[in-house]
């Protein structure tokens, strides 16, 4: 872990340490900045919050949102829940796996895209839904729209 990452972790802890129930806000702050929770952060957080490493690790590993390794440059999530299934998300997911050459949770060989499942984006009235990089929501995504998302991801850092 480089110095910048260590500083990010320290400042995330300092910003939330005194709030009630600080652990999730600290983890969010670290992942928002670094894209994942480095293993080295676990004992540092434990020390600061008077928790064991096991307790911190237990929380990190419980929540699907928290990653323990760096994702690709972009994260593309395809909703797998019922409403999107009713509008073809199973076929869309199959297309995505084939087009990217990865399984769910996998990252493409060029490091551009991590493909993830997600269980409901609240965009059920525009199913099937896809989320890009955690804040760019898309609706009525067909194979062509998915390919356009992939092209855009590959052409940007």
């Amino acid at each position, binding site marked *: 872990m480089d110095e910048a990452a260590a500083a990010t972790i320290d400042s995330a802890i300092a910003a939330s340490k005194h709030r009630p129930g600080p652990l999730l*806000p600290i983890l*969010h702050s670290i992942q928002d900045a670094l894209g994942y929770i480095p293993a080295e952060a676990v004992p540092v957080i434990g020390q600061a919050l008077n928790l064991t490493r096991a307790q911190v690790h237990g929380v990190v590993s*419980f929540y699907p949102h928290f990653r323990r390794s760096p994702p690709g440059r972009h994260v593309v999530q395809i909703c797998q829940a019922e409403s999107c299934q009713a509008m073809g998300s199973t076929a869309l997911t199959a297309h995505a796996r084939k087009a990217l050459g990865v399984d769910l949770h996998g990252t493409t060989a060029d490091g551009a895209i991590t493909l993830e499942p997600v269980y409901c984006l609240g965009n*059920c009235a525009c199913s099937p839904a896809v989320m890009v990089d955690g804040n760019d929501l898309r609706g009525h995504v067909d194979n062509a729209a998915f390919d356009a998302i992939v092209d855009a991801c590959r052409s940007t850092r």
Partner: protein
Amino acid sequence: MTTTIYIPRDASAISRGADQVAHAIADEAARRNADVKIVRNGSYGMFWLEPLVEVVCAAGRIAYGPVTPKDVKGLFDAGFLTGATHRLHQGIAARIPYLEKQERLTFERVGVIDPLSIDDYRAHGGGRGLARALEIGPAATTEEVVKSGLRGRGGAAFPTGIKWRTAAATVAPQKFIVCNADEGDSGTFSDRMLMEGDPLTLIEGMAIAGVAVGATQGYIYVRSEYPHAEATLNAAIEVARAAGYVGTHLLGTNAVFELEVRRGAGAYICGEETSLLESLEGKRGVVRAKPPLPAIAGLFGKPTIINNVISLASVPIILDRGAQYYSDYGMGQSKGTLAFQLAGNVKHPGLVEKAFGLTLREILYDFGGGSASGRPIRAVQVGGPLGAYIPASQFDLPLDYEAFIAKGAMVGHGGIVVFDDTVDMAQMARYALEFCAVESCGKCTPCRIGSVRGVEIMDGILAGKSDRDERVTLLRSLCDTMLNGSLCALGGMTPYPVLSALEHFPQDFEKPQTQAA
């Protein structure tokens, strides 16, 4: 003269290009020297028309939709700034039958106002509920909510006022109001729409709850999949603080209510109230055994009101117009309105707020317009991933908590997901069990192990193994164990979709038996 144009900021509208449409309209207006003011409102919830752009004209708010950036030049050419007719012209938004036929109480301002404008909020009746609560005092406020008959809109339908009474009666130096905005059920988006379209109502409802039970700190636990809602809430809290709905002197009195947004982390189980409290405390979202009830020992062991977004957002109108006004809507023990959400394979998906008692058929066909694919509707799942699958033969069932329970189903949070006749209900049964296996918190065995065994049983049935009958018997027995032995609704209700699929669509479980057991 400045022309006001409304373009939604709702996440679903954005997912269909509302931001690009807003940019295109601003650019085109600048190019033509047209004097326009763009307001980003919430969505009315007619999603097949999103992005729905409204222009304020002499005749009213004239709607055009669904608008794409490519349509913008043509709209200006046609004269949409004066409400001229166009291919996308929908007339006055409020007169569109889908919206006009609704009974909007909780959602009365959603789509109408700028969600972050306190002036808009007040001009449309906002703030009066909190003022009345401060005037009549805690006990009368709680009794007003009891009398309204409001029941928990998150799904469990527990009487909200009774929860408040319990917390109010518990003596403690610190109490909390927690808003459950972990809206994880597929086919539901009413919490999200409310938080993005009229967040001040939710904040006002929480402040009223604080006044009623003597709680000075609130938390909104919003799921990480809702970044737009989270951002809007954070901005709205600052607006509310400046207006005296949050802070140390509520509306100039000595009442105190602080409020903070906390982000979830992708765990469906955190929609279960005790698991949510664990998560807020910074722990794994593992379900707690009850008792103690959260109203007696909840967040950090203190008395805590934990209510769903829609429950809390329904409180201001109850205080403002009185319990009787609210309870005059609805039927039987299901008082008031529910914001139904119509999704999946349906022509006109969206939000339909109506008094309890309308039938599924009315919602699916009168509002929904049938399936999106044009094929027959075969099944609908009501109440999220733990809700039963309902066949077409039961579409005349009234949407009422008790009527659904009598049929082994649940209204839940009001999500309705539509499937056409291409659906394989055995696959959906397997999915329900797989979802439970993925999302189980792991505390109780029926849920943690039962869901995994259930997927294995279903895999054999789907693969056409020759011991199908034994597998079906085992599946029923497993569902019985999960129903009766699980600690919370995840394990306890996963059998609903499984058993309803089996009961109403048995032919889907009869795959050609091509493999040895």
